[in-house]
């Protein structure tokens, strides 16, 4: 059970103006995407622990079993490795599974199937087999989630050829990227963040996709480029707003997809600002921050006016207690502080 959902309910983000379009909750947006995909393609099926229980995976699978039947929307045994292989085998034979996990931590049980099988068959079979599947999970945080229920594992998977990795930050993207991921002919991982599950946003009705591999400017600015995704971007935007009052003009790029990475938008922005801060929900070491920071040193070195900085998690497991969590997770203040140091000199 996502016991930290109670906590999630209490989170407030700036509420969008209904006049400019239809306002929908984040989980509901995902629910719409799944509904549309199931209706549109008989090959799509949705599985995962509790997708048909009263909680319905944060509500993302609400009503789907009633509408599409228990054969296409079903609960699974507690067998993450086995079910990942089952999805791979089904995907290799005309189906498009959407395998949902309550937390990314549980995907670590299935790394053999994900990293050594699903991501490689298309290549190993010389293109004869495709593995169109979506693996979805919601990152945990808070209320004692602790070291085993809060891991952001996108950094561990970034280097694995054949995978795509998506991390939405808005209801609009959550729906559009889910539909794009289901339509994609490769294994696509979608890492959501619990703290976005109750966020509201503009969400068009019906079918649309957000292309995989394309980032977007959330905020234009000339002083510094902040890149990231998911909830880390949410925090970065809060920091950017603060900084604006101080006359620091941050450009904020939402990558939306970490693999393939939209290098063009980062390079375009960095060319203007010359300063790069990478934020991520995961450990700063060896993951998303490291890859993008290295790209800057490698490909955009001559744009750089100052050292690259990264704001992610320290090289420490997640503590359970809320007091320690406050020190563990970087907040808008932490990010603003780093940005101030960067633009000072």
């Amino acid at each position: 059970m996502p016991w930290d959902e109670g906590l999630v309910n209490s989170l407030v983000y700036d509420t969008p103006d209904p006049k400019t379009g239809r306002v929908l909750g984040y989980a509901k947006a995902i629910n719409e995407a799944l509904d549309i995909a199931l209706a549109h393609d008989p090959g799509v099926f949705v599985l995962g622990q509790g997708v048909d229980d009263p909680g319905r995976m944060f509500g993302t699978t609400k009503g789907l079993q009633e509408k599409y039947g228990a054969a296409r929307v079903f609960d699974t045994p507690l067998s993450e490795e086995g079910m990942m292989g089952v999805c791979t085998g089904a995907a290799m034979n005309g189906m498009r599974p959407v395998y949902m996990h309550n937390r990314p931590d549980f995907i670590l049980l299935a790394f053999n199937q994900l990293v050594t099988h699903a991501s490689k068959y298309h290549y190993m079979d010389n293109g004869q087999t495709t593995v169109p599947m979506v693996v979805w999970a919601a990152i945990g945080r808070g209320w004692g989630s602790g070291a085993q229920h809060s891991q952001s594992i996108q950094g561990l998977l970034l280097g694995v050829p054949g995978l795509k990795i998506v991390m939405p930050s808005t209801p609009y993207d959550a729906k559009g990227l889910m539909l794009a991921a289901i339509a994609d002919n490769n294994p696509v991982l979608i890492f959501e963040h619990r703290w976005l599950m109750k966020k509201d946003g503009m969400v068009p009705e019906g079918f649309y996709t957000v292309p995989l591999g394309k980032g977007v400017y959330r905020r234009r600015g000339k002083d510094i480029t902040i890149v990231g995704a998911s909830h880390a971007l949410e925090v970065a935007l809060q920091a950017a707003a603060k900084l604006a009052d101080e006359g620091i003009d941050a450009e904020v790029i939402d990558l939306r997809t970490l693999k393939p990475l939209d290098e063009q938008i980062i390079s375009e922005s960095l060319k203007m600002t010359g300063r790069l801060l990478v934020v991520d929900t995961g450990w700063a070491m060896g993951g998303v921050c490291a890859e993008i920071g290295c790209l800057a040193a490698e490909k955009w070195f001559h744009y750089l006016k100052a050292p690259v900085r990264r704001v992610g998690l320290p090289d420490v497991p997640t503590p359970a207690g809320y007091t320690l969590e406050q020190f563990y997770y970087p907040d808008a203040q932490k990010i603003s502080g780093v940005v101030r140091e960067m633009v000072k000199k």
Partner: protein
Amino acid sequence: MIKYAYSGSGLKDWEGRLAGYDKKFLVRLFRDMLRIRLIEEEIERRYHQDQMKTPIHLVIGQEATSVGCCAALLKEDLLYSSHRTHGNYLAKGGDLKAMLCEMHCRINGCAGSRGGSMHLIDKSVGMAGTSAIVGGAMPIATGAALAAQLQGLDRVSVVFIGDATTEQGVASESLNFAALKRLPVIFFCENNFYSVQSPLATRQPPREIYKWAASYGIASVRVDGTNVLDVHEATREAVARAREGGGATFIEAPVYRFRAHGGAGDDSHTGYRDPAEREAWEKVCPVETYYQFLAKAGLIDATQRERMHAEIMHEVLEAFDYALASPNPEEKDLYTHVYSD
């Protein structure tokens, strides 16, 4: 509609069989169950106050398994647990204050506020460790048994698992290795028929869990998990087997949780199970049925029970006060013990 009915025969078979048992011991079993019940109820009562910022997985209804099992263990024997730790920790003799401090995220918690309710540990009494990953503790307890075997100790390790845990591949791998090496380990499976809100039938084919375990060639039994004496006897036999080099035992104990998987209160009303199912099991509440049994045998009466109740509540409230008055961790505490020197 009741999907999973109680199939036990209660305590009546025991009426003639108390000869070998010390009366104090029989009463202690009741007190230990009552204590766990009262602690869980107090945690539940206070949970909405949000002072305990940690998940809770209450064992109300599952007291007999922890108490009956731990009563057959020595302090030196090791107990490994899952997310559902409270009963295991308390029955093994874990310190109550340290537990409540942990649940209140205080620096003097049993895990220094790093663990929370899913990581209750008290090495001084053999409460050795837990995993919040279902199945995670199974091979670890098996490894602890291997250590005992290599060190020539006659220490036994026990790991508590649930019905869904048997669906994890690592459960099979643990049984295979324990059977192969004849390790002194006991796999204690509390089959409460649900995984969060998923009933057994959506996760496993019709099969007997304990017979599956038996297919690895280890001793495997099913006992009534509401019956503290059955549980104790089965564990005692398993412990004897382990100490004599007879290897591992698997114990399946059908039991029922009276509350939601996590958090306070029952959630049957949400529809995944019939409230009537819970009510049926409440009729065979391990604490009450055993009290009636002891009373009938003249080993306890209402006044003694009230005194017990009062003593326990005194201890419990004191422990809560202690926890609430305890200090929070500071920033420097975040960075210690990432590595050991």
